Each structure stands twice: as structure tokens, then as C-alpha cells.
């Protein structure tokens, strides 16, 4: 373990903080192996022999922030397509299906061109092209074996199978009995190298239903979409992860595959596996299966920086729901040297019944059912927001919540936190780390994310060090820098039915 030397100060620190834990951490570190394959893929393996099972977490460093213009939602679409099978899985005859799918793309391109014509659009031509496209889809569907990939995982004892897409990344995960480890390596590497865009347009409808559920038919979803689009200007958090409805009717399987080819490359992924795995036998298996994915350089990492904000922004939404207040302040990305200070401020404001916002808004002023502040909205890879929100009690208004939150923010700006508070926060952060180590799935997620974001899974523990160094002066300095009105976007969600009572 070449990194061991660098861990020593950290170990000392933890031993001082939590005597009993030092030993366990040392043994924990011995159980982790990191291996970078020749094609650029990083594997983190952690041995945990509690039961004959394992969990994995594959993280791809591409999220909706990478959606090209006009193709919002395509990263999320790709996540759905990762369950549609491969050359081997989900087809009755791949060579024939491949030809049929290519015809679908040609027909779709024709149909889309006709449909998008601004001048001289001919409805008859649109209808004919649409029909040709639908027929091509029907022809291709004949070869598809529905949901074969997911079925195999489930039948082979996989549990907790799912995936998710955020602004910053896309991740895939489930757990399996240990005797299926090699089968898993086959399945996971297969979908990361042989994706097939079968039933793409049907799945696009499913995703559109997902958008209806999360955004269009949810007052809170609509509100958050509006809020982020106002709060962010030039950076990718301006756009919705699930995609704009127009783009969801526009993009093609060809475009999704282009996205895949660019971003689903080994150098852009980390896979963590945790369970009853001996690195001596498990690593060669992973190397055999994942090593066959062709290597490519990590894609260009440029992303338009957020424009500096110079005046307060406001969103006022009338929705058929009870009021909620939100506000956000721009902060730099997660690699900012003050990152740990934001963590401490979030804990101070929000964690537990002793937190500043709970004590003030809920217990003392009795105006809110809940209030909190947190960092990393709606992502953290790029410059993001430290956000606050409050849920007013019946008879109280968003404005009262805003005023009370500002009062608490002012206290943080003008008065030092107490020694007891700072100590409590640091203890709590340590304990929360320990508690996050108690399951294969949780550990796999932690290790994969840290390895991807810092190039070093040890950052999971190093961050405690950074938190321990946070001083009272740091907290005031950062609060004064960030929590200013010209750096703020406020969102008032007010009840459009306020005159009548209750929603109908």
C-alpha cells in the first residue's frame, strides 16, 4: 500500500478523537485496494466478510451538466438505456436487430427534419415520415427481449438494483451473492461496452412520464425548476436534469450513443466493490472483464463558469400548495479550500434539535415546522449554492421565515460560535463518518465518489482533518463573504388558493 505513509497523521488524529476507533480504522485501511487498469478505469476494492455477498457502485463522471445544447435530459436517458441490454443480452438476433435499429434512426432523422421545417412544412409528408418511423420501430422491436438485463440481475439474486443521474454524475448499483461475482463482472462490463439503443423512443416516453411525475404534476417540482433556472445563469445547473419537454421530443438514439461514446470511457469512471472479496482473486476477474473496454482519454472537462451575480434575484410562484420559502447563495465548487467551512456552517444551522434554525424558527419563534440550510445545491462539482429553506406553520408567511433566517445568518456573521458548538459539530461529523461505514452498499458509494472526485478514496477520512481545522474566524469570514444580498436568489412559493381553504 504505497499510500500508507500519508495516512499516519490522520490515524493519529482519529485515535485522539475516538480512542476505540483507531484500531478499526487501521484494519479498515488494510482492507482497501485501489487499482488503475491500463485502459484508465479505476477500481476500488474493499474486503468486508460480514456475509457472503457484495455490493458495487459504478460512477460515471458525466451527468446532466454534460447534456449538449438541445439535448437536455440525454445523460438521464442514457442511464435508462443502460438497462436495455447489450449485443448478447436482450435480443433474439443481434446482427438483424442492428440493421433494423439503423433503419429506425434513418427514418427518425427524416421524420424530425420534416417536423422541424419552419418554412414549407408539409403535414402530409410529416405524417408519412412518422408512419415510416413507427413501422421501422415495430420491425426492430421484434428482436427485442424486454427487460432481459434487469431480469437476469434479479433472477440471479441481485437486490437494490437501480441507477441515478444528477447534474454531476451518473451512477449504477446493486448487491449480489458472492458466487455471482464473476457473472456481475460480465454483466457490468458488457453494458459499459456494448450498449444497444433498443426501444429507445418508447423509453423516451417513459422518461417523459417521469418528468410529468417529478416536475409538471408536482407543485414543488415546478417551483424548484423555476428557482434553479433563475438562480443560475451561465453554468449547467441552470437546466433541469430530467430535460426540457421539447428536448425530450427531439433527441435521437444516435445522439444518445454519441453521448455514451464520449463520456462512458474507462478514464471517466470509477467502480467500487465491497464485500466478501479477496483482492488476490477478485482483482484479476475485474481486470479480465473490465480491462477489455477500449481505453480513451478523459473527455474535455470545460464547463462554462457561472457569471458573478451582482444583484438580488427573486422568484415568486403562486402554486396550489401551502407556502415554502427558499433562498440560495452562490458558492464555489467542492474543491474550494473553504469547502469544510461550508460543511460546518450547514451542520451548525441544521443538524439536530440544537441547530440554530431549529432552535430559533421552530422552538422559539414558532413560525416554522422545519427549517434548514445546506451546501451543494443542486450539485457540487461546479460552482453551486448554499441554500436555506423553511416550511411555515399555518398562519405564518414566507416573509417571516426569510426574516428569521436572515437574523440567524447575521448572528453567524457577527458573533463567534461557542467552543461547545464547534466541538459538537466536529464530534458529530466524525460519528456520521463512522456510521456511514456500516454497510457494503454505503461503503461502495463513499469509496467510489471520493476516488472519482479527489482521485483518492482516503479523502473520506481526510475531510475530517479539514473540518477539525475550521476555526471560529473561518466561519465568520465565509459567512460574511457569501451570505450577502447581492449574491442571493430568493424563492417564495405562495398558495394560489389562499383565499379558499385547503386544496381541492
Amino acid at each position, binding site marked *: 500500500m504505497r499510500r500508507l505513509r500519508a495516512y499516519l497523521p490522520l490515524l493519529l488524529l482519529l485515535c485522539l478523537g*475516538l480512542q476505540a*476507533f483507531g484500531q478499526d480504522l487501521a484494519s479498515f485501511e488494510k482492507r482497501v485496494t485501489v487499482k488503475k487498469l491500463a485502459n484508465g478505469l479505476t477500481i476500488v476494492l474493499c474486503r468486508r466478510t*460480514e*456475509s*457472503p*455477498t457484495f455490493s458495487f457502485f459504478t460512477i460515471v463522471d458525466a451527468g446532466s451538466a454534460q447534456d449538449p445544447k438541445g439535448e437536455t435530459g440525454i445523460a438521464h436517458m442514457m442511464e435508462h438505456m443502460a*438497462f436495455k441490454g447489450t449485443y448478447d443480452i436482450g435480443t*433474439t438476433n443481434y446482427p438483424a436487430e442492428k440493421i433494423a435499429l439503423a433503419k429506425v434512426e434513418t427514418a427518425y432523422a427524416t421524420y424530425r427534419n420534416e417536423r422541424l421545417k419552419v418554412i414549407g412544412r408539409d403535414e402530409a409528408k410529416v405524417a408519412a415520415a412518422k408512419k415510416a418511423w413507427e413501422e421501422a420501430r415495430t420491425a426492430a422491436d421484434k428482436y427485442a*427481449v*424486454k*427487460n432481459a438485463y*434487469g*431480469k*437476469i440481475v*434479479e*433472477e*440471479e*439474486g*441481485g437486490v437494490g*438494483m*437501480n*441507477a441515478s443521474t*444528477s*447534474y*454531476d454524475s451518473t451512477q449504477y448499483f446493486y448487491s449480489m*451473492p458472492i458466487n*455471482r461475482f*464473476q*457473472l456481475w463482472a*460480465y454483466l457490468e462490463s458488457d453494458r459499459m461496452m456494448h450498449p444497444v439503443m433498443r426501444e429507445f423512443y418508447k423509453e*423516451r416516453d*417513459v422518461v*417523459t*412520464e417521469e418528468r*410529468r*411525475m417529478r416536475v*409538471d*404534476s*408536482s407543485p414543488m417540482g415546478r417551483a424548484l425548476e423555476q428557482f434553479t433556472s433563475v438562480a443560475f445563469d451561465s453554468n449547467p445547473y441552470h437546466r433541469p436534469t430530467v430535460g426540457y419537454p421539447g428536448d425530450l421530443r427531439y433527441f435521437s438514439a444516435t445522439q444518445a450513443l454519441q453521448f455514451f461514446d464520449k463520456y462512458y470511457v474507462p478514464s471517466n469512471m470509477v467502480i467500487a466493490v465491497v464485500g466478501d472479496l479477496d483482492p488476490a482473486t477478485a482483482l484479476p476477474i475485474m481486470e*479480465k472483464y473490465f480491462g477489455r473496454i477500449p481505453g480513451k482519454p478523459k473527455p474535455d472537462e470545460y464547463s462554462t463558469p457561472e457569471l458573478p451575480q451582482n444583484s438580488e434575484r427573486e422568484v415568486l410562484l403562486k402554486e*396550489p400548495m*401551502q*407556502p415554502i420559502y427558499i433562498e440560495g447563495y452562490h458558492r464555489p465548487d467542492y474543491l474550494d479550500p473553504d469547502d469544510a467551512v461550508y*460543511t460546518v456552517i450547514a451542520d451548525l444551522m441544521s443538524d439536530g434539535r440544537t441547530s440554530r434554525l431549529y432552535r430559533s424558527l421552530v422552538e422559539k419563534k*414558532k413560525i416554522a*415546522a422545519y427549517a434548514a440550510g445546506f451546501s451543494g*445545491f443542486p450539485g457540487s462539482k461546479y460552482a453551486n449554492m448554499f441554500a436555506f429553506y423553511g*416550511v*411555515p*406553520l399555518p398562519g405564518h*408567511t414566507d416573509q417571516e421565515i426569510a426574516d428569521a433566517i436572515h437574523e440567524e445568518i447575521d448572528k453567524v456573521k457577527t458573533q463567534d460560535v461557542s467552543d461547545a458548538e464547534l466541538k459538537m459539530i466536529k464530534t458529530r461529523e466524525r460519528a456520521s463518518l463512522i456510521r*456511514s461505514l*456500516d*454497510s457494503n452498499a454505503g461503503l461502495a458509494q463513499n469509496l467510489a465518489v*471520493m476516488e472519482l472526485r479527489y482521485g483518492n478514496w482516503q479523502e473520506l477520512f481526510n475531510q475530517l482533518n479539514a473540518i477539525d481545522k475550521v476555526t471560529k474566524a473561518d466561519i465568520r469570514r465565509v459567512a460574511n463573504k457569501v451570505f450577502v444580498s447581492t449574491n442571493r436568489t430568493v424563492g417564495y412559493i405562495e398558495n394560489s388558493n*389562499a383565499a379558499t*381553504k*385547503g*386544496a*381541492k
Partner: protein
Amino acid sequence: MKNRRTAVLLSLALLIGSAPMMWSQAAKKPEAKAPARVTTGAIPSSWQKVPIPPLPAWKPEQPTRFVLKNGMVIYLMEDHELPLVSGVAYIRGGATAEPANKVGMMSIYSQVWRTGGTKDMTGDQMDEFLEARAAKIETDAGNESTSIGFDCLKGDFNDVFKMFVDLMQNPDFRQDKIDLAKSYMNTAISRRNDSSGQIVSREAGFLAYGKNNPYVREMEYSTVAAVTRQDLVNWHKDHVFPNDIMLGISGDFDTKQMEAKLEEAFGGWAKGPEITQPEVEFHPAKPGIYVVNKADVNQSEIRMVELGIKRSNPDWFAVQVFNEVFGGGFSSRLFNDLRTKQGLAYSVGGGIGSSMDHPGITQLGIGTKSESTIPAIKGLWAEIGDLKTNPPTEAELKRAKDTILNGFIFNYNTPDKVLREKMTLERYGYPADFLEKFQSHVEKVTTADLERVALKYLHKDQLAVLVVGKAADWEKQLAELGPVTNLDITIPVPGEGAKAEAAPKASNPEGKALMAKFVQFLGGEANVQAVKAMHEVSKQTVETPQGQMTVNVDETIVLPDKMMAKIGTPMGEMTRVVTPDVAYMAMGGQSRDLPASMKEQALEQIARHYVSIAQHVNDSSLEFVANGTAKVGDKDAAVVDVYLNGKKVTWYLDPTTGALLREQQNVVGQTGPAEVTTDLSDWKTVNGVNFAMKGVTMQNGKQAASTETQTVEVNPQVDPKVFTKPQ
């Protein structure tokens, strides 16, 4: 996961997943494989050729069980991986036993048990003690039991456990935390119709079990208001006895030492009565179509429900396999046909429901765009019909069993899961080896069993179909499927509901007579009618979260509909003017229009002034309904409901003198209801008319404001210019 930094890095705020909300686990058929292309010699040519060695024989650690002399059942499970200890005690008796007129009582109990602290320590002090140690003690209430749990670092165990025992035995249920809990619950009530998802799951529960069934009934403002501290104290006194408690502890400890500690902590605690669970009735709704209109959505949430089975039913194992085939995960018929093939939904699923000790809810559900509401309903029906014409095949059976059995190890792969399962089985009276026998029961299930349970427990014609969505988009076509019942989900507001519905009630003679008496008390008709304007100077004291605030108010009312008030505030004088034409407030040379709702409120206030009402006792727009008597202080007051433009104010009059003792109104704030009463006293005669010099206003039983009037002037000189807006 639990690590916040990782969670932040994953930006949980907008995580969106690809698997739907799957309601149960479930499998279909991969067909013959085409030969796959091989990239390297060492990689198998297809997934079926990947070797799967046998799973090593493995038996999880079992907890130690023992019973104290006083009947407390204890499970201990050592787990030395992390330096943590956690535990939970379940106590028999829960929300199914709370009185129907106090629904929400157990929810309040579950919060205040912890937040209200112990005899020796307030809840806030406990918070500080625990959070400084990153430890937790929390309480909860379920349907059949309540629970109290702890979680701490090993080194803090002795301190935290001591507090855990103290809270279990000596809680104090302090009133301020009861009020806090009630305000949460009122918030929850006011917000329960905000999202389709919440509406559909609640209403589906009502249809399956009956609206008053204890497993699904909803708390209301009135049932929450009815709960008292004594209720909580009594519940605790009547239920928390060692022989009704099962305690489980897991983590980094030594079993022998722990046994001794528990014996010491609980050994001397005397037994109490055996708690029995109440008999619960189930009244499923009539089959048919039920609708909740939600105009702001473009997606319909559809549920079909009927009564399910108990887990003790011998068919339960076959039902688990059936649910895999029919409605669970990626392999199920519902997912394959309605999501993958037809693209109708993101979220779809269903199955025959079961619960440990009562029938579960059999439920099919789908969320689909408004336009495909009818095809989605027909699609679910067709899947039920298809079970008869196209019963589950051997291949489906095998895949479902594989799914259940190959993943079975995940039911007991952590010490905590083993412990919880053992405790759950014992709490509900199931044999301890239920889990061990599960596998052989599942293996025995046949396709005939699947067909049989489908016929026996899933009936197209007995399902209540619920649609929540934008009715305008589909109500016509829906009516073609059968008779439709519209569900009213209006949130009842106390005092308004029943009585307001009868609002057009006409005046009764007793009401009229009492009002005549009041006019007499006020100074007689002639004097009362002579009042055109009133000018009052008063001192008002308002309760605010920061404490009391006193302001001087100089108010002029010109009847019937103009008012101007000058309010002295710490920041300077504020002027507020309301007439039918203008409504504004001004301060420091700047003015701002009042929102329409505030203007309306102010105009209503003028119309409700007792002088104004006395002037209109004979108007047809007002109704006066005598409504018995009630105590105000120690006086028996005559009650008159005064309806003004359909809105009600209740007056309490002194039956002998005719004096107005109290006004009472139910107002609905932006989100919730409040009962506002004002007690009037110290009447003083000015120009032959009586004015109350003292008023005390209570909101929901708590003092909110008081007014002391210093001077009253009748028909003062008023410059009409004061009612125009300054430019």
C-alpha cells in the same frame, strides 16, 4: 447514504432514478440466445456461460434471547465491526387503540415522549447532552406498538443508556412541546392535499379499508385539538410495563456484561397488565370508479384496491411468488407490458398485499399522462383478465422463484437484519424459524398455485378504481367505463364545516329578541342610529414571539365602510387607510397598497363592529340565530350566531343586561384554522351610546392581544381628504 459529504457530492437534491417505485419484488422470459461475439478468448461467449460456483455454506450469527423475571423480553446481538451500540424497545399498544375523536394522539405522544424530557431534564437539555456526543434517543409510535430507541458511540453507552431508561420510565410530556407537536400536525394537515402522490395513497387506503379504519384514518384539526397532556400521561401510565416490552440491543458490547446491566436497570421493575390489541373492522368501499380532481397536473395517478391477506395465511408463500410474476420488478408482467411495451408509465406495479396481523391492501397502480388515463385503466384490467386466459407459465414460475431464492440471503446478511426479523416474528406471534422454513415453502409453489391465488385474491369486479388527476381531460370517457363517484377531499375546519353548511339558516325569534335587548343595552335605537363616525384612542398590547409589544392606536371609523388608523410603532408612526376605493399603509413619507385580502378583512372588521351590527338588526342581509347558552367566565351567556354576508360571528350576551360579553370567530389563516375570541368589558357611555373600554383577544385559547381604550369620541369632525391616497 448516511455520509453527508458523499450525499452532497452526489447532489441528492435532484437525483433521478431509472427503476420505478417498485412496490414488491418480482420475473419474465429471456428467449433463446443468439451466439454472442467474443472479444477475447478468456471471456465467455454469453452470460449463461459464466461459471457460478455454489454459495459457501453460511449461517448468520443468532441473537441471544432471554426473559427477565418481570416478563421483559430481551434480544442481544454482538457486532464488533464499528464502535457503536444501538437498541430499540417495542411496547405493546399503538395508534389502532387511540380514540376516534383523538386521531393523532399517538403521533403527538411519540414526539413529546422524547421532546418533553424527563422529570429531571427538559427535552432541550437532553438534546444538548446527546448531540454533544453524536448520540440519539428517539421515540416513535406505530399501529400496534410504540418504541423508544438509542444509538451511540460505545464509549458513551453508560451515560446514554441511563438517559434511555429514565425517559422510558419517567417522561414528563411538557406542555410547550405538546403545543409544538400540535403545530407540526396542523401544518401536515394543511399540506396534505399539496401533491397527487399523497392524495392518491391516502384515498386508496380509505377505499381499501374504510375511512374510519384505524390503519388509515386521518387526523383532523379537531381531533388534534382534542388531545390533552393528561391523555399522553395516561397512555404512558397504562402501557409501559416490562411484561409488555421487547428490547433488542446490537453492537460492540459483551453479552454477559450487557445482561448484567439490563438486569440491574430493569430487574426491579414491577409487572403490569397484559395489553391486548383492539378488534379492528374493515369496510372496503363498493367496487366502482372514484375520482379526485386536481386541476394543476398533467399526469393521472391511478390505483385499484381491494382487501388483501394476512401473512399467516397458508397461501402467503404462493402469493409472494405470484407478486414477482405479476407486479414486482423488471421481470413482472405489469412492468413489461405497461411501461416497456406501451410506454404508458414511469411508475407501475402492484400485487396481493399482506400484513403481519391484519389483511394487507391488494393494490395495482400506475402514473400516466392525462391523455392515456383510460388506456392505462384498461391496461391494468386487461392484465388481470390475462391471468385467466394466459396463466403464469413454468418459465415465469422458475424466474420468480430464482429471484426470491437467489436474493434470499439479503434478508439476513447483517446482524441488525437478523435481530429485527427475530423480534418482529416474536412480536406478531410467528414461529422463530419462519425465515428458515421460507425457502422450502417457496420451492413447493406450483403454477397451479399461482393460478389459484390469482383467482382467489385478485378480482377485477371487486376493485375500487381511484383516479387522481385533471378530470377535465378524461372525465367524459371515464364515465363510459362505469358510474363515477367524486371524492371530496376538502380539509374540514372546526366550527365551519357542519354549522357553516347550515349557514343560510334564517333568524329565529329568540335571536331577534336578544338583539333587540342588545340595542337597548347599547343606548337605544335612536342613539345608536345617530352614530355616523367614531374616534377611539387606545393602547394595544400584542403578544409576539419576541415578547409583548405595546402600541398606541388612534383610529377613526366612518360608517359604513371607511377607516383610518395611526399606529405608533417603535420605528415611527404608521398610517393605515381602508375604504372601498383605496387601501394603503404609509410610513416615513412612503406608502404601499395593501393586498386585496387585507383590504377585504379590514372592511369586514368595520361591518362587524358592534355599533354597525346594532344599526342593521333589521337588515335582511343579517341573520341572528339564538343557539343556547354557554359560560363566559362565571356567567351563563346567551349565544347568538350572527351571519353577515354568509360569514358567522358568534356573540355571547349577558341575558339580563343585554351586554356583549364575547365575540367569537373561526378564521382560516393562510394555512390553518384559528378560533379567535374577544372578551369585552368596562362599558362607558359616550353621547348616549355604550363603548367597551377593554378588550382581550385570545387565539386558540392563548392570549394574543389586549386593548385599553382611553378616549372615545362620537361623530368627530373628519376631513374627507384623509381617505384619499397621498401622492
